[in-house]
Structures are given as C-alpha cells and as structure tokens.
C-alpha cells in the first residue's frame, strides 16, 4: 500500500464527511428545537481534535500556508476579514482548511459549488446546515427553507446566523458558569466556507451570484460570521465593479519537486527502494504535471510494473539498484508519461462520483469528443445523427463547394471532375486549405444546414430504395422525408445544448444566427459509420 493512496483516501474521506455532516446525529427530530450542544456537534468537525504539530506534519510543505491561515482566522471569538484561498488543483486547499478547523474545533458551514451546482441548491444546503436540518426519507427530502432568489437567501441567512450565534453564545456562557469541561469552548464565531468558487463563473446567473457572495460580509453585517472562499482561479479573475471588500488572498503554490519527493516517500514499506524509484521517475513526470493526485495514479502503476520482476528475484543490493531500476523502467517510462492523466482524479472515488453524476455525464461527452472510443457511448436518434453529420460537413466544407458535392446525382463523380486543376492553383488551394484547417471549423447559417441535411437524407433514402422496390419508393420517400424533417429544429437545439454544435457569433451583416460544429473528425466518422453513411466521400480534402 503506497503512501499516496492513503493520503488520497483521507482527503476524500474528509471532504465527504463534511459535506454530509454527521449521519449519527440524525436522531434529532425536526420538531424538537436543536439543543445548543447538539448544534455544536453538528457544525464542529467530527473526530478527534488535531494538535498544531500534527496538522503541520500531516501536510508536508504547507507549513507557511497553515500558519498564515490560522493567523488570519485569529484567536477565539475574534472577527475576521473574508479570506480567499487559491491555488492550482490538488494543492491541498480544501483539506488544509478543513483540517485546520478540526484543529481549531470551531463551528463552520461548508458548501462546495461543485456538488451544489446551482444557486438554489447552494442556498438551501447552507441554510439546511445552519438550521441542522437533514434531508431524509422521514421528511420527504424537503429543505428547511425554500429559497431561490439571492435577496431571500440573504434574509434567511441573516436570521439563521443570528439564531445559531445566540445559541452558541448561550452555550459558552453556560459553560463558563458551570465550569464543565466536556470539551473545548468553540466560541461564538461561525465560519462559512464556499469551495470551488471558480465553477460559479459558469452558472447562469453568474453576474449576480459572485458579487453577492463577495459582498456577503458587508450585507450580513455580522461580525461573528467569517467568510472563506476557495478557488482554483486567482482573485483577479473575479473582477467586478462593486463596492465589496476585497478578500485577503492566501496563495497555495504547487508542490515543488522536493516536496513531492517528500510526500511520496512517506509511509513506504521499502523506503530505500522507493526513493531510488522516485529519483528516476519523479523528474520527468514533474515536467508534465505537479498535481499530487495525477502523479500518484501514474507513479503507482509504474511502481507496480517495476516491482513485478523483483518479487521473485528479491531486492538487489543498493549499489547497482539505480542502474538496474533505470534499465527496467526505461521501456515503460515514455509510454506511461503519455498515458498518465487519462483518468480524472475525481472519478476514482465512488463517493465523489456519485455526487458528480451530472458532471460526469458532461465529462463523458467530452471524452466522446477527444478520444478514440470504439463506439459512441450515448444514444442519438437516426435523424439527429444525420443532422450532426450535416453540421460537421457544413463546418468543414466551404459553402461554395456545396453545389458540387451535393448534386442531384449524388456527389462521387462530380468531385473527380472538379479536381482536375493545374499545379499552381493546386498549391494555392493547399495553403488556403491549411489555413482553413488552422482556423478550425467554420460557421454556417441554418439554411445551409437544412439544405445539406435534406440532400444527404434524400441520398440515403435513394440508396435504400434502390435495394427495395421501385413502386413503393414514392410513398416511402415521402413518408420518410416528413418523418425526418418533422422536428429538425428541436433536434438542433438538443445538439446545441449537448455542446455538439455551438450557437452564436451572429453575422453582423446578415443578422442571422450562425452555428458551428464542435465535433472532432473521429466522432463524426463514428456517427457516420453507425448510419452507414460515407462521410469521406463528401468531405472536401486535399
């Protein structure tokens, strides 16, 4: 069991345990008003408190950041200015922050904008956690409060915070009075953490939500509330022209090579052997990525490979270990460098995968775009496939060639005639073609798409009908045609929503919407193959 894996596991575990806090405390009925101590249990990190030394030693190379963070959060019962944690993925932002709260033992509310994928869910999840309300079967998975608009959210949030802070204050007073030492006093501050803030930029109401979140400190006007944002992107990408206070940034840099070395060589069964393994492999991998999650996946498979022959022959003496190792790994190194990161990290853990169902669907579509999978892994109706093909053709071919390609006779012969041209013009054409390729797919108006669609569907029907009977062809073609054409516009909008075709870029002269196919050639070929359409025939190539 390698260290990096266990590190991964703890990380994921902390994340999931905070986003669905304390299943055991679900004994609290909705009707009973949450008692102060229960409330405290809900919002404070579960598990043993962590000492500062343990915290720092758990996160190698994050000492400065942890100290800075604790310094900004400050001692018990002191108000703080909003914080902004940023840095590349897998730099330990979320886990450092959450573990720091475990160390501090103070109440906090954690909402990730990845799992709460729209404003409504984000608002409701925050309010649910504050009122320690749990969505479960007994209450029909309803929310504590329904909340849609930012203005309602602010009102409800204010009320909820006031209530929580009052109970907390009463709680700490009680403790002071009775001198009961059933745990550390958690103070009267409540911290609100928003994770993955960069995703909000892609939401629909982005222009409202982001300024609202940043301004929350001013709007709430509660000194007992601390706001902390976590983001991949740096603060200057969130520029907005509102009068909100700029949060204090804390930057989490990527791990350096030495730090990575230290991280990976912790908790290894055979430290000497593993360190010489790292000596060889870490450097080339670091050139490509310095993310711990990606590296751990890549290194682990590589390590297994180099362990295989060793297991029977025993470990060689340390003197020539490096050279033998190097010889062994030489073959595997280059291909695995290229193959690394095919598995996105957040798919590896099941927990996360469940939550990210929606995201994953989007991911799958992306995979469909870029990688050469054997078949299309999503369902499309036949006419949609044709529509996709025609969009692809419209994007790749020049509009002037349409007439030549889609002649009534069916294309093939015409193309050959077209290509008899002199050498000079051929060269010219090639450079133009090169340029076209560089520019990416072209745009096209709706009319052209429909025309091409009609052409290719009629061609296909002709070829089908030839096989069948001639007498039937009239009515059959008629029927098929109407069937195919019936909801083309609907299908087009579906394709647009699936990001297979992108809409936009209205032409300034014509004022009509232009489309652009964003499908790669491989995918288009696959789709064409599935409906037995000879795409190559219609694709203008050098």
């Amino acid at each position, binding site marked *: 069991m390698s260290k990096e894996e266990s590190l991964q596991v703890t990380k994921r575990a902390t994340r999931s345990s905070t986003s669905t806090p304390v299943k055991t405390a679900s004994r609290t009925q909705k009707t009973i008003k949450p008692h102060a101590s229960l409330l405290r249990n809900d919002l404070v990190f579960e598990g043993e408190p962590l000492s500062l030394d343990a915290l720092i030693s758990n996160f190698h190379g994050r000492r400065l950041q942890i100290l800075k963070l604790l310094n900004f959060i400050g001692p018990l019962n002191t108000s703080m200015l909003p914080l902004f944690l940023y840095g590349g993925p897998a730099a330990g932002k979320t886990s450092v922050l959450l573990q720091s709260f475990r160390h501090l033992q103070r109440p906090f509310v954690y909402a990730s904008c990845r799992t709460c994928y729209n404003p409504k869910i984000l608002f409701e999840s925050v309010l649910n956690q504050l009122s320690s309300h749990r969505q479960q079967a007994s209450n029909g998975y309803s929310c504590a409060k329904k909340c849609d608009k930012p203005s309602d959210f602010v009102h409800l949030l204010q009320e909820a915070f006031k209530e929580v802070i009052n109970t907390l204050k009463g709680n700490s007073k009680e403790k002071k009075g009775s001198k009961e030492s059933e745990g550390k006093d958690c103070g009267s501050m409540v911290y609100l953490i928003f994770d993955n803030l960069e995703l909000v930029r892609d939401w629909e109401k982005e222009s409202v939500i982001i300024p609202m979140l940043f301004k929350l400190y001013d709007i709430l006007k509660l000194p007992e509330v601390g706001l902390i944002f976590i983001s991949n*992107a740096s603060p200057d990408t969130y520029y907005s022209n509102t009068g909100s206070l700029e949060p204090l940034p804390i*930057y989490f840099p990527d791990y350096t090579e030495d730090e990575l070395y230290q991280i990976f060589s912790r908790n290894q069964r055979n430290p000497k052997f593993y360190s010489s393994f790292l000596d060889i492999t870490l450097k080339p991998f670091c050139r490509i990525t310095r993310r711990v999650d990606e590296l751990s996946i890549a290194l682990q498979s590589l390590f297994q490979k180099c362990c295989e022959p060793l297991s029977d022959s025993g470990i060689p003496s340390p003197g020539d270990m490096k050279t033998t190792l190097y010889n062994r790994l030489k073959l595997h190194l280059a291909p695995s460098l290229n193959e690394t990161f095919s598995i996105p990290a957040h798919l590896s853990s099941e927990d996360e995968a469940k939550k990210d169902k929606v995201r994953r669907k989007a991911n799958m579509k992306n995979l469909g775009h870029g990688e050469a999978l054997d078949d299309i892994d999503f369902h499309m109706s036949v006419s949609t496939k044709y529509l996709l093909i025609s969009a692809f053709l419209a994007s790749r071919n020049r509009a002037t060639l349409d007439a030549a390609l889609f002649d009534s006779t069916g294309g093939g012969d015409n193309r050959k005639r077209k290509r008899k041209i002199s050498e000079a013009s051929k060269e010219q054409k090639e450079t133009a073609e090169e340029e076209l390729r560089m520019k990416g797919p072209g745009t096209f108006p709706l009319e052209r798409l429909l025309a091409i669609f009609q052409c290719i569907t009629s061609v296909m029907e002709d070829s089908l009908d030839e096989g069948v009977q001639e007498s039937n062809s009239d009515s059959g073609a008629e029927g098929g045609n109407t069937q195919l054409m019936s909801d083309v516009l609907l299908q087009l909008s579906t394709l647009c929503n699936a990001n297979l075709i*992108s809409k936009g870029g209205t032409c300034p002269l014509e004022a009509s919407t232009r489309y652009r196919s964003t499908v790669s050639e491989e995918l288009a070929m696959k789709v064409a193959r599935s409906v037995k359409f000879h795409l190559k025939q219609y694709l203008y190539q050098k």
Partner: protein
Amino acid sequence: MEERQTLAVKAQIEFRRRICDRKSIFSIFSESPNSNYSKLKFIVSNSVTEGCNNSVLLLGPRGCGQKEVLDLVIEDLKAEYHDMISVVKLDGILHSDDNCALKEIAKQLCLENQLLFSKMASSDDNSQFMIAVLREYGLAHKTVIFVLDEFDLFAQGKQRLLYSLLDAMQSVASQAVVVGVSCRLDADQLLEKRVRSRFSHRKLLFLPPNKEDRKRQVFCIIMIPFISLFDWRKWYCQFCFEVKSVFSCKGIFILNFFLLVQKSTHSELQYLVTSGLMRGISIFRFQHAYLILFTWKQAFSFFYAYPKSEKLGVLLSTLTLSICPAMRSLHCKSQRSCHYNAVFKDPLSIHKQGPYLSSNCSQKLSLKAWKSVLECSAIFLMLWQILGVKYREKKLIIQPDYLRIIIHSTRSCGSLLVLLDGREQF
C-alpha cells in the same frame, strides 16, 4: 512572562476588532468641515429640518468609505433627531429587479412602523403603499432616507423603480432623501432622461485618502490609548514608544513606499495591518522595535508579490509553459488569437519546439496542457467561451519581457528561452 503573553493576545484581539470595524477607520475625518462627512450631513440634515426632498450620489472607487461615511451620518442624525428618521436600504445586487425592490421597500417600511407586511401584495399595491407612507411621513414631518447601494445596477433597463420613487417624491408633499452609492464614476450618466430630470445633480466624490490621511488612519488604528482596556500601563507605554520610533525612522519610508504603490483602496491597508501588525504584536513581547519593522517589511513583500508571476512560474508545469513561446510567435506572425490546432498542429511550431511539443507528447497530453492553459485566465484571454475546449481561442496577454523573466526563473527551461528569443526575430 505569561502575563505578557495574555496581554499580547488581548492587544491582538483589540486590533482585529478595530480593523474589522471599518466605520471607526473613517470616523477620523469627520471633524474637518471640508470632508465628505460634513457635506453629506449638511445635505441630509437640511432635508430633515427644512422638510424638503433631496437626492445625492456618492461616487468613488471601492474602499474609499462611501458606505462607512453614510452609515456614520445616518447614525449621528438618528441620535440627533430622535424618531424623526426612517432608513430603507436596498442593494443593487439583491434588488435590481423592480418588483423585488418595491417589495423590499414595503417590507422595510412596514417593519419601521410596526405594520404587518403581506407577502401576497402585488407590486402595484406595494408602490401605492409606498406613496401613502411617503405622504404620511410628509404630514408628520418625518424623513425617509432611501439608500441605494450599487446604484448603477438600478440604472439598468427601464429604471422603473427609480422613476416611480422619484416621481412619488415629487408628486406628494413628502420628505425623503435618496442616496445612491456606486463605484462607477459615470453612474449619473446612465440615468434615463425622465429620471435624470427628477434627480438633483448633487454628487459627492470619494477619493482614496492621500498620504497624510492614510498615515493618520494607520495611527488611529494603532494608537488610540487603550489604557482602559489594559491596566498594565508600563507595557502600553513601551508599546507606544516603540511604534512611534518605528514610524519616525525607517518605518515611515516603508509606509510611504507602500502608499505610493497601493493607491486605490484601503483594504490593502487593512491587509498590511492584519498581517504585519498581528505578527508584530505577537513577536513584540520578546523584544525590539526592529522586529515590528521587520514584520512590516515582510507583510509588504508578501503583498507586493506579483500574482501573475507566481501563477506562471510556480503553477504551470514545464509542458504548459512551453506553450507560451509558441503562442507568442503565432501572435507575432499574425497578430491574431490562436487556438489548440494552431499551437499544436502548426508544422512550424512542431518543428521548432522539438522535444517539448510534438515528438514525445501524445494527443491526450497536449490536450491536457491546453486545458491547464484555459484555467490560467490571468495570463490568457479567452475569446470564445462557448466553444469546445479545442476551439477556444486564446491570446497571450503577458509582456514578452516578463515571460522571459519567468521562464528564466524556472529550472530546466533553458531551451525554451532560446526558443523564445528565436521567435522574437520573426
């Protein structure tokens, strides 16, 4: 020693409280007759005493204390004219929708007068209610102050709210003040004609405080005597002495330099104070003033770190960094933005980038590098948001000199530098 430590903690808590309480930072300017505080107070109190309508815009870049000064004024006036003033606060971010804003006004007016607010009321009802309340207030010689934060957001679209508010004020013998707060200096230009004619053109400009004022602000945070809080007088005296000595010698130089660089907001100031002073205080219990000076210096250098450089130099892997020269050269060639195909499939770039871009990195890997380029929006300008990953067009928005420095600073990128220089000669 332990006693000292608890005192240091106490002092730290007190400083934090002060920094977080932004009103007090701006309250020091309230005495001078020329300050915005005095002007605003004059305008509002005029309306309270004379019984007339008024409207004013508070403009200025963020962090210059528009809202803090307004809050101070309202607080003072409320104390001065007891029970004569009601305040309705709206925020452009939350209430830019007209119906929503009217509802909010009605709600706050109800709350103010201990009336029951009905959620079901239509926006017509709400606006009629508002007019009725305005009339009542006019008869009772009470004043309503409407505070419209993020005023520019109310000035979008048809501006129905602004119109109905200002129109109601004119048609009824009311006694109301509309105060708009905005970071856009041209906020009054956004108003429609019919709204503009009803709006008084009073504007108060809030500028970043000058050097002297800032120094006073910092002093005000640090130096208010808090003997009442701490009874250990000796410690406090020593502290004051040392702070003064820091400010009188080298510290002043640093502070001045800092103020030169950071001209706009006071949040940086707060930042400096939180990070520098907090640590200064905690170290203070050990010894000398130069420790404080040291922490100030540290805070300054920490803040001054250029965000783009840390992003490029530290975050990007070598592979991603190697895209930069390619993009730079494409930019030199065609003055256009470029996308994935152009960078990775351009035969020229493949040929010249050699080991970096083409031969030993697969399609997947190059796509990944490109994706990480997409993430660094500080360095690259995105032109086509909607398209797929491959076809998003990018522009390098970073100075070539700067790029060179960064590449130079990262290890194992020597050949890239050569490449970049070669490209410049295009």
